[in-house]
């Protein structure tokens, strides 16, 4: 399977990612906050959570808004290797295509949770339930 060099999101999820970024980053007039998140940070978390939960994301229903270079998103091919080793990627899908689907699904869920609860339920995502 040929791996794509760029992956991204549907325009809807891309819009949602922008909004999530605004929500998670400090307000423009904030004086005390300096650390800022970039799109990759949320994108990678969405993929990692999808892998962890062994999700089976649907194919993107819209033309992918391919804005991310794979070499920048996953410079060490870490995400690729994990998916590859786990063998969770369907045969008919490229690994980065699968990663893109996981990101799309994860970001949509993030956005949904944000709308419902007014914040990202990070504790629900991250708390070790074991």
């Amino acid at each position, binding site marked *: 399977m040929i791996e794509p060099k760029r992956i991204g999101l549907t325009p809807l999820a891309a819009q949602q990612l922008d909004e999530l970024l605004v929500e998670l980053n400090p307000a423009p007039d904030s004086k005390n906050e300096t650390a800022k998140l970039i799109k990759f940070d949320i994108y990678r978390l969405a993929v990692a959570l999808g892998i962890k939960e062994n999700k089976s994301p649907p194919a993107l229903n819209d033309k992918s808004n391919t804005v991310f270079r794979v070499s920048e998103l996953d410079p060490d091919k870490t995400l690729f290797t994990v998916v590859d080793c786990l063998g969770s990627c369907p045969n008919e899908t490229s690994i980065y295509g699968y990663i893109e689907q996981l990101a799309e699904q994860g970001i949509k869920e993030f956005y949904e949770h944000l709308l419902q609860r007014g914040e990202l339920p*990070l504790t629900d995502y991250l708390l070790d339930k074991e």
Partner: protein
Amino acid sequence: MKLQELTIYNFMPYKGEQNIEFPQHETQNVMLLFGDNMRGKTSFLNSIRWGFYGLAVGRHSRPIPRTHLVNSIAASDDDWSMSIMLKFTHENRQYELRRKIDKKNHVSIPKNDGDFEESVGLKINNQVITGDLIINEINQVAPEEISRFFLFDGELLQEYENLLLEGDVQGEKIKEHIEQTLGVPALINGRNEFTKLLTDARRIQARDAKNSSEAKTHVERQRVNENRQITLEKDISDLEFLQRDVQKQIDDIEDQLKNTEAVQKKKHELDILKSTRETIETQLAYDADEQRKLFQDIWKDVLFKGVQPLVNKLKSKRDSLLNATKAKAVLDSKISELHKSLEMPICPTCTQNIPQKEMDGIEKRIIQLKAEAELSHVNFDDITEINSQIDNLSKIKSNNEGNRVCELVAKQRKMQVSIIKIETDLDDIEEEIKDFDTDQIMRQRAKKERLGNQLFKLDSDIKETKVSLNKLGEAQAHISALISKSTGIQGQSSTIRVNLYQDLETIFKTGINELRDALRDQVADYASNAFSELTTEKTYAGLEINKNYGLSIIDHTGQVLKERSAGAEQIVALSLIDGLNKTARKTGPIVMDTPLGRLDPKHRSNVLKYLPKMADQVILLVHEGEIDPSRDLSNFADRIGARYQIERVSATESKIVRSN
């Protein structure tokens, strides 16, 4: 002096005529006047003060304007007359003092003191005393200067604490009054008289010395000094005027601030809450930053646990491949050995030819081993690939970011709850104080502080100027001595007069100091005795007096007690007043307004037992919180000669009724 009767007419809350008879019995010498706050206890005290001296005082001992002295209901009925009649005895003489004010004929509604006419009448043993002599007669019985020690407000007893503060303006004022009570002014006035006479005598001496060439220079110096003295005296007078003005401004601000004490407290609370909110918000921002930094690597932490089995699996796979590689190498080596045997069929041990049968076996074995080697064949790219995957997966490290973010979220929630609570409190407080200009209050406080600094500077300037003036006085005395010794001046009547006045002035100066010391010791003794009866702490050794008449408590080790309670301050102040009364005057009434306000029950009981001994007549103006009629009266029931009650008629009118 013993008070007999007081008749009040239209004075402050007392509309119409009120009549009070004071107890005359020697042992039943206590009169109680009960009244709730705002009903007119302090006005009663002021009625006596005004009757004697034509002065009623409010906060900071400020005179109350006449328009405020006339009962407001009577005034609204256009009855602007107000009077006080006091009957008292002193040294077997009967006094009847009447003081009255009424609006002037041409005034329709009085606006200030000048719109009233005041008349004073005094009869002694039914003989009318004429105008000018009245003040002298009153001063013989109860001089105005000492009134603070027999007509006093118990709530202001704490001002006596100022006597312990070196250089305190209020303390100096009280000291002045104490010395007036003790009679020191007689000597001070004497000294001042001689100082004045001395100045005049020196002037005459200087005129006489004009013709003396020897004294001429001294005379000129004396003249220059005299001019400087006049300038310095004027400076002192100006500075003291300024000092009073600044003090008045401070008092006014204090009055305003006192009314807004609750608001100031709330404002202070508000500021603290705002500052706490700011601290929490800063912490929240810091934590949010920290959370975002963790967020950047959190995906690795999410994958970390799942990746470990993968890495192990890959390592195991790689190990099997490596083992297969090794096994193949062994097989290849064996095959190679066997091939050599086929090529050279001689036994390496016995050097005999290997039989064909054996050779067939070797061939079979080679085929078998080749088959096995074929099965153990490993593609090295696979191992490289696995190594690469292990490397990639090993880059997934965890610094426990997930749990740390969860901790931060929990902390954040708590802080947000705190902020919500603070904001609710802030809203409540802001609602409570919304009608007050808190900025103005803060400005007033800042102004008061500035004025306080100004007052301190003025005080120190006055002291410095007085020191210069004293030095100048000494220089003048020295010059005067030189003039007196000059040829042609010696023996002249002006010189004899200068010498005489100088000696007398010195005698008075020395006398003042000696009298002060003696009186101070006496006050300290009396006050210590009173204190030992009033205090509930019997281990205290007594009281120690300082040069300003400030009293300190001495504990059982002989050390000065550094901190004392408000109640202890009141007990010490009462002891001082007793000491002053006993030192200054043998007989006389004491009228106390709210004297027990800050005392606990045991001290209250001690004071109630002791008060009847403090004076021939004791008039206590109290509320039922200070003396509970059902409980406390038993302590000194046999000393009560009369009991009155102030009853409310309306918010602006009260009346005094005798009770059983």
